[in-house]
């Protein structure tokens, strides 16, 4: 059971990393750099789009950059 869970975490590693680490990291960056967001968009929404989007891309493509 535990092994299966660990395998699952590694299988979806990029997505887990994107949502788990990059989302709060992007949010912290937006707040720290005091970036003004248009139309009252929430910093969390932008962070979710960036972190989640990057994680999803890396999950599908198998790479965080353009080269594999």
């Amino acid at each position, binding site marked *: 059971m535990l092994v299966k869970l*660990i395998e699952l*975490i*590694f299988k979806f*590693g*990029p997505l*887990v*990393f994107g949502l*788990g*680490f990059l*989302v*709060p*990291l992007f*949010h*912290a*960056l937006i707040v*720290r750099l005091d970036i003004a967001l248009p139309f009252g968009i929430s910093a969390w929404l932008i962070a979710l789009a960036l972190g989640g989007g990057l994680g999803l891309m*890396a*999950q599908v493509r*198998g*790479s*965080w*950059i353009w*080269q*594999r």
Partner: protein
Amino acid sequence: MAEISATPDAALLAREREIASRHMGHFPWGSVAWCFANLACWLALWPLVILGIMPLWLGFIVATLNISLCYLPSHEAQHDIIGRPGSKLRWLNELVGHLSTIPLVLPYDLAKLTHMEHHKHANHPEHDPDYSVHAPNALAAIWQSFVSRQPRADGGIKSYGDVMQKMDTPRARKALTIAILYQLFFYSFLIGMAWSGLALEAALLWWLPQHIGLTYIQFYLSWAPHHPGNGQGRYKDTRAWRSRFGNLLTMGMQYHVIHHLYPRIPLMRTPRAYWEMRDVLEARGVQIDGL
């Protein structure tokens, strides 16, 4: 030079061994102190930065230095230089081996087993675990280091797991399990810190410095001393080279050929051993690039 070139192989080997023997068996105080000081410094960054005593940008620079410098004490331990098996200081050897590479998220057992394979098969396309770092030039080597860390890339440090699976010994299986636990801890820590409001601190004290440190280590320990990496065998798989960045910034790797010939010579004695052995190495046809 003409004189030494004509020296029989046996005499060259005897001279080489005599020089090497004078440098082996010395306790590497410097590397042991380096391990503990470096780790203590990196650990101290966390409270210093989180409590606002040290600015984050400075913490990032120091952490990057700490992580870039953390591998070599473990490397001394991997070769049993601090304490041979069964010796009084064996515990210290193992302690240094385990502790020093924690910031790099590289467990000692995995590092040791793969490094021994590297020594056995240096530059072999299939059997050298560090072969994927090979690249035609310095920039390509740096890029290759990043590429090899991508989720579905082959090679680099990711291939160490494959090496363990191929070995399939109890020790290799244990090393692989510990490596997985290290990875789980590392990413759980990053995620936990990030959701506790310390994402920037986690990113700049560990995540980014670990990437930079890994690249730096792979560049100077794997790529540069083996470049161009097309030779195999005792005097062919490693070179001596002069770097414009000097011996400190290249972490002593200009003299890496000495390490491959005599892995039990402590890092800090390899320059002296090299200069004493240089004419023998030249006679043996070792690639010497400006050193």
